[in-house]
């Protein structure tokens, strides 16, 4: 094991590159997963997250760079000789085995092979861990999706791997069950103390379960950090756009310093935003964007007087309203800004009485709520934006 400030490191990528023909799936990637943590690789399909997972499992070998598990290089080591186990996206349970035989499969491959009684005992422990006692003799296809998933978990955990790999494990479950399993997975991870590496395209899943999230795009890690870091301190437009909802006001960076930047919109309006944590200063005259989360925008009845709580304020007209239950989403149109998305809490609605399409309102926000970001979608990759190491 490798000693770091945070303790031991279970998985490391050093400049790992994986190509399929002309397609660059993983591009010079560095990764460090500390022992006992719950890490997510998050990104849209084709971002290289699944390839990264398969590189750890050994189903793929890198074209360049080094993959290390527990400090030792595993390049060239086949999957069956790696101390990692995987929960597959479709679970991949063996249809010709019972639940107990599926779970015990890993034990039966050990040399020397444990005795029958030991296998039965260990399988029993795993069944208890995933709360499937009494299902030993069942066929895997008789089980519900959630139960199959728990069998897959038990099967992957029985050999006490250094790292458990999870490939979109919740994608096949319905919403309610998915939320239950999120909690269950988190609890399980704390109980067994094994490092979990989860691959998902679902930002909510990543945000709710992981200690550390690696947001990926085009085979690279764009930002790494905790859920709060990614949501509150996105380092560029891509991150702010992928994680949660955001309003974006496009323009040109007119002024920039270490605290923030001023961006001139096409309409001539000038908006100020702060730098996200870890970003020193933006490049002046480059394409920039002001990003504001819809829940950070204040909305009130248009009454001509400026609100005391906001720094930027404008009048707007309600275009659309979506009732979400716990909150209400408004799409408003403001001159010089275009469309603005606003989320009003239940409490705010009870104070204002709510708005209807066509109503005129005042919307505004604090400058500290607005982030000034480089617009990587226009200028290609960020050139000098350092990836902050947090947590």
């Amino acid at each position, binding site marked *: 094991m490798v000693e770091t400030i945070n303790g031991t490191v279970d998985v490391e990528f050093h400049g790992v590159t994986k190509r399929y023909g002309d397609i660059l799936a993983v591009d010079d990637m560095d990764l460090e997963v500390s022992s006992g943590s719950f890490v997510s690789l998050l990104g849209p399909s084709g971002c290289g997250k699944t390839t990264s997972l398969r590189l750890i*499992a*050994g*189903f793929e070998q890198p074209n360049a760079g080094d993959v290390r598990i527990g400090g030792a290089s595993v390049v060239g080591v*086949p*999957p*069956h*000789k790696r101390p*990692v*186990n*995987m929960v*597959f996206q*479709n679970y*991949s*349970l*063996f*249809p*010709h*085995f019972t639940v107990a035989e599926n779970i015990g*499969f*890993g034990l039966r*491959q*050990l040399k020397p092979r444990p005795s029958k009684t030991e296998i039965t005992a260990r399988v029993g422990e795993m069944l208890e861990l995933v709360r499937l006692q009494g299902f030993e003799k069942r*066929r895997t296809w008789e089980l519900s999706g959630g139960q199959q998933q728990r069998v897959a978990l038990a*099967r*992957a955990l029985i*050999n006490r791997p250094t790292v458990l790999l999870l490939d979109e494990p919740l994608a096949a479950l319905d919403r309610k069950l998915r939320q239950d399993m999120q909690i269950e997975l988190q609890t399980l991870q704390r109980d067994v103390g094994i490092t979990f590496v989860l691959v998902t395209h679902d930002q909510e899943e990543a945000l709710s379960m992981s200690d550390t999230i690696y947001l990926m795009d085009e085979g690279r890690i764009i930002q790494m950090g905790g859920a709060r870091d990614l949501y509150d301190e996105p380092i560029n437009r891509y991150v702010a756009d992928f994680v949660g909802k955001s309003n974006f006001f496009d323009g040109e960076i007119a002024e920039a310093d270490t605290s923030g930047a001023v961006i001139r919109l096409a309409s001539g309006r000038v908006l100020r935003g702060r730098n996200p944590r870890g970003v020193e200063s933006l490049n002046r005259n480059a394409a920039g964007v002001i990003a504001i989360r819809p829940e950070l925008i204040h909305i009130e009845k248009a009454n001509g007087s400026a609100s005391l709580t906001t720094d930027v304020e404008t009048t707007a007209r309600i275009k659309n309203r979506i009732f979400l239950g716990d909150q209400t989403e408004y799409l408003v149109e403001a001159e010089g800004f275009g469309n603005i998305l606003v989320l009003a809490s239940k409490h705010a609605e009870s104070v204002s009485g709510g708005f209807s399409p066509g109503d005129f309102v005042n919307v505004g926000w604090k400058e500290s709520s607005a982030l000034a970001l480089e617009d990587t979608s226009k200028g290609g990759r960020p050139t000098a934006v350092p990836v902050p190491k947090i947590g």
Partner: protein
Amino acid sequence: MASTGNTGGPNNRVTAMLLLPTTLWFFLLLVMPLVVIAVYSLGERAPAGGYQPALTLAQYGNLLARLKAFTNTLTLAPLGTVLCLLIAYPLAYYLAVKAGRGAKPFLLTLVIIPFWTSFLIRTYAWIYILGGRGIPRLLEMIGIEDVRLIYTPTAVLIGIVYGYLPLMVLPIYVSLEKLDKSLLEAASDLGASPIRTFFQVTLPLSAPGLVTGSLLVFILLMGEYLIPALLGGGKVFFVGNALVDLFLQSRNWPFGSAVAIALVGIMLAAVALYLTLVGRDRDRQNVSVL
């Protein structure tokens, strides 16, 4: 063969009508002839040949006179099935698992292409290949003399493997093609070496195709006539050849019928034994046989 115990109604009538052609076909062309042959087997040979009614088991008592045909069939048919299996499995595995997307349709076509020519003509070709001017001549050129192939059991086996291989390859290919490849990754991930993965996952999950292919080849081989007739040259003959001889040459229909019934009986017993052996193992695994 219509389903029984249903509540009736129009649905049942449609089912019955759909099954009617098959039922008639089986009754007229399978059950009736079998009954006729069973009855004939209890009769006597008419003085001028053919059948003469009687009720005797004498024909069955005489079966040992054709023992050689039975032993040939019962050794070469299972042996041929096993050889087909051993050669077909790696081929089917390659086609289903390893072959690239582009190559696969082409290779599958290659497996099927022999069917485009008459089986008779293809077997005739083997007479030349195995005969004095074929392979033995080539072997002579490299110094191996006096190799005799044609009209030997080896020749018959070569003909069998050549003729029946596609029938074994295709069902195994289908079952391997359906096999979820991520199961192989899962086995490997859980610590199984490639060899163990094959025996613990691939082989059991391709068993349905293996059983189907084996039964198909074995049952057809038990009644094989053409290959021993052409490549066995009267020296290596099957029960099928004995039957032709009995019915057409010596015109001893009752004895021929008894031989035919005995063959059917042995075949049923062999298939039942095979399915029991396979089934005992599969009861646990609960994978449908056919």
